[in-house]
């Protein structure tokens, strides 16, 4: 029983449970299908990117450029489909672009040996600037292909499409981290890079893969977001990277690498999103949408450190 309570996931579950009970007493509207769907839909883009970020943070790296890349992707996908009229070409160009950005992020880290906190911060600035070089104005949906709109706005049996996409990707990452040797490698590299190298593991190769995977996931999330907004917008994902990283850390992944779970990440995101939602439902000033998660993040990481000190 004591072990059960020492697990990070258990605590996160309890926090969510507390919020759910509290909010449903406060405002019965909370349990409406529409409200739950809106929480899940807005969670899914964050979750998709957070899967990649969990891998990166586990291996001791971070990617701050995901928000800027996400905005860029919405612009590219909308523009290319507008011009070509082809969904395939639109998606292809997004994934090629994301692959290249991930590759560059990875090479800056592994070949140039620039700390990823700084390297990807630079990439964030580069992307934020160059998206305006690409196009000064927001790009509206002029192609009007229904399938595209369906990706972000559609439902299957009352479940929003973005949630379904997320649920398709989810098991791949649970599988990757828990059941394959690659999952072990990411943990080993983050926990002790010297030891993993001395065990014959090519640290740099896996770090590179981590950056590329994360960028490709941003590509998927960006397509969803563009569809949801029906626009390609330059500044559409400001602060997105911070929400993703905060959620992953809240989920128990260590910023120093070496430990992380997908389940924890999902719970972390749900907590942030339920709080978001609660603030709206309780008509608290919207500014608190940033304040409350900030406070919770500090507390969560603090309790995590406490628990680790006690155990180790």
């Amino acid at each position, binding site marked *: 029983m004591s072990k059960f309570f020492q697990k990070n996931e258990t605590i996160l579950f309890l926090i969510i449970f507390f919020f759910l009970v509290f909010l449903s007493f406060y405002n019965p509207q909370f349990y409406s299908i529409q409200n739950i769907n809106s929480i899940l839909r807005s969670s899914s883009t964050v979750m998709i990117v957070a899967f990649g970020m969990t891998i990166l943070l586990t291996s001791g790296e971070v990617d701050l450029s995901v928000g800027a890349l996400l905005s860029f992707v919405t612009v590219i996908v909308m523009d290319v489909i507008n011009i070509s009229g082809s969904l395939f070409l639109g998606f292809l160009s997004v994934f090629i672009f994301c692959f290249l950005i991930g590759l560059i992020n990875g090479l800056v880290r592994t070949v140039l040996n620039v700390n990823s906190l700084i390297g990807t911060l630079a990439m964030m600035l580069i992307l934020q600037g160059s998206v305006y070089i690409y196009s000064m104005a927001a790009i509206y949906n002029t192609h009007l292909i229904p399938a595209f709109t369906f990706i972000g706005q559609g439902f299957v049996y009352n479940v929003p499409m973005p949630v379904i996409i997320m649920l398709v990707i989810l098991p791949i990452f649970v599988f990757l981290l828990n*059941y*394959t*040797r690659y999952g*072990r*490698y990411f*943990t*080993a590299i*983050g*926990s*002790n890079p*010297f*030891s*993993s*190298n*001395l*065990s*014959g*593991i*090519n640290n740099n190769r896996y770090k590179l893969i981590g950056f590329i995977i994360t960028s490709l996931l941003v590509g998927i999330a960006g397509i969803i977001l563009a569809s949801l907004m029906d626009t390609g917008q330059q500044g559409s994902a400001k602060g997105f990277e911070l929400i993703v990283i905060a959620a992953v850390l809240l989920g128990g992944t260590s910023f120093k690498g*070496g*430990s992380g779970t997908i389940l924890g990440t999902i719970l972390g995101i749900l907590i942030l999103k339920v709080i978001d939602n609660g603030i709206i439902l309780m008509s608290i000033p919207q500014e608190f949408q940033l304040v409350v998660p900030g406070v919770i993040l500090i507390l969560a990481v603090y309790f995590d450190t406490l628990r680790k000190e006690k155990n*180790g």
Partner: protein
Amino acid sequence: MDNSFKSLSLKNIKKEFPGVLALDDVSLEAKAGSVHALMGENGAGKSTLIKILAGAYNKDQGRILFDDKEVNIDNPNDSLNLGIKVVYQEIALIPEFTVGENIFLEKFPVNSLGIVNWKKLYNDCNNLLKKIGFNLNVKEKVANLSISEQQIVEIARAIFQNASVVVMDEPTSSLTPNEIEKLFEVIENLKKNNIAIIYITHKIDEIFKIANEVTVLRDGKLISHRDIKDTSEEILIQDMVGRKVEQKFDRPVKSFDKVLMNINNISTKSKLKDISFNLYKGEILGFFGLMGAGRTELAKAIYGYDNISNGTVEIDGQTLKKFNTQTMVKNGVGYVTEDRKGEGIIKDMNLRENMSLPSLKIFEDLFIINKKREKNAADDYIKKFSVKTPSSERLITLLSGGNQQKVLVSRWLIRELKIIILDEPTRGVDIGAKTEVLSLINDLAKEGLSVLLMTSEMNDLLSLSDRILVMADGKISKEFYRGNVNQEEIFKASVS
């Protein structure tokens, strides 16, 4: 500087660590204006003694007398207040600051407003350097100085406030002969200034140049204290080495015929110079060397962890010029580090995951790790090496040092292995587990594994090695064969 200071003496000092008696009834007296050399093999207790003097460790028993008055050294501050300054091997200056700024770092001369009086600082600095007989531009950045000059700055920094005792730990290890001469001049000047010097070194010839008396420690015990006039190189080596009873393992002298690995003229930028040797199948090849001789550097260079600047490695007839750790692992080489905590264990993983890390491929069914097979393999080795743990799922950090070491060795045995490189395999392992680890190595070699055994423990070396290569200063200085070994000669070759 305090001119009334006469002597600092340590009396009957005892210090125990879990499982080890690091110092057993050791006494030492440092007299003003004189150099007292402290010698002994690695692990003899020199650093423990120094750390007690510096206030980093507390003694368990014994007394410390400062000018015949008993004093307490409970923390580094007590030590500094008595004027005891330790100059460590690693230089700890701020490279971007000037000589003057570094020397007066703790106590810049300031006026009542807190503004630094630079003129006074550099004047005082010049006077100080003159006092120890050294000429240096006090406004030069430390980063632009040679290593020996930096060392002098360290010494100046140590003594600028009333130093009574200066402890130097292997001060010449990275100096050229010319620079050593300069350092000795400075030491002579310190003596004139009524400072007592405790001088730790492996290099016997230096002692006869500057020391007045010499104390030898071995295994935490005081072996001898002699006036420099009453001793000789032979006597000192005898004192340091003693007659060791080597542990008996069933390992008869035999000759090997099949060369497995061939090292040709390996050099690295930092340390190694032109190293060549052969390793035979089933052979335990021991490498002995003192701190800084280049054993670990050699191990890491062969294993592809550090880059080599020159040379080749040949394994089973295949010549490798450019290689990394992955190449070596693929070629059946394994490596167990001397730094178990820093480079060995993965603290976020359990025993099983630590053991299987380099060999995960063999536990894969398609893409999935078959945890059952993995666990079985781990359980096999837990049993085979009697690793003390409740289960293979225990967090690695919860095991003792010896048991962690067994896991790290097993890490390589799970896969097909031809050569294992062991760097200080018994470091930090308690005595009982030591014998177990050693006999495990013996068994592995009997099964046909070739072993490179890097060690500074005479006992490990003598009880297992079929052949011994002695390293000194990045080179191989001498070769010995099992059954024809002389401890004094090994030691002599290692200090040359």
